[in-house]
């Protein structure tokens, strides 16, 4: 048990469960990247921020934070959206550009949502390059099938 007014770190799912705007069991303090000081940094240039280090679930976690009645919620929601919008271009260009030698520095700074998008862009590029090389028309065994061991005749007996 603990005293009223004490500060604890608890998992998000627990905070959500305990939260109730009428009964006021818990109130949530924002992690610093969602607070005003950092929000200003994001609006100056969101591209420089290492969202992996700061997150790595900046967008997802930020969206969940909006469940708690915080007067700054509209600003937080707006910052999260604008951050996505300003970083979009670089993720798109580097994931789809064959001539970009080293994208690892950029990817290191992406949060998990952005990394998933980056991978989607890469797949599109890879598929195109396969087609260009004439590999798209080669029939290859499905990766699922390749993992089946060959059945021996003795296995099917009795």
């Amino acid at each position: 048990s603990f005293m009223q007014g004490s500060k604890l770190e608890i998992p998000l799912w627990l905070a959500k469960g305990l939260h109730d705007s009428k009964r006021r069991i818990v109130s949530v303090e924002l992690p610093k990247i969602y607070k005003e000081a950092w929000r200003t940094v994001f609006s100056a240039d969101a591209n420089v921020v290492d969202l992996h280090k700061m997150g790595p679930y900046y967008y997802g976690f930020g969206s969940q934070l909006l469940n708690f009645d915080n007067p700054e919620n509209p600003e937080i929601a707006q910052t999260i959206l604008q951050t996505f919008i300003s970083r979009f271009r670089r993720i798109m260009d580097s994931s789809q550009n064959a001539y970009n030698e080293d994208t690892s520095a950029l990817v290191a700074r992406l949060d998990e949502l952005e990394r998933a998008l980056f991978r989607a862009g890469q797949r599109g590029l890879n598929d195109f390059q396969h087609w260009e090389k004439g590999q798209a028309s080669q029939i290859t065994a499905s990766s699922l099938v390749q993992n089946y061991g060959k059945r021996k005749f003795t296995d099917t007996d009795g």
Partner: protein
Amino acid sequence: LFQGDLGPFNPGLPVEVPVWLAINLKQRQKCRLIPPEWMDVEKLEEIRDQERKEDTFTPMPSPYYMELTKLLLNYASDNIPKADEIRTLVKDTWDTRIAKLRLSADSFVRRQEAHAKLDNLTLMEINTTGTFLTQALDRMYKLRTNLQPGEGAHSQDF
């Protein structure tokens, strides 16, 4: 299987056949291929220049310009005058179109528009960038719903 009639085949006289048959006959050294009228250096230079000049997409002479160029240059380059130049021109045009597509996508995201209409794109271009775009826009849509008051994020999707 489908079936139909082709011909008549008279020696020395050109006849129109489906691309797959043309390639097949060519591979068996039974014919010479005549490239489409647009597969010509002057015509392609015109198209490339227009693509570079305009903000919108140039209507391409074939919805399968990439596929046809690849097939014909791979299997019948001896029948195509200035094949190397043609290859370069088509690639340049493709690069310009893809760059334009990305510019459009970024502009669409920045302005948070709800609807866009891009005429004259071919399937090849759409498929190369499509996966990335649809996923990104889906993510963005979810972030936008955060802005609605009283509608905290319910999704656990990161």
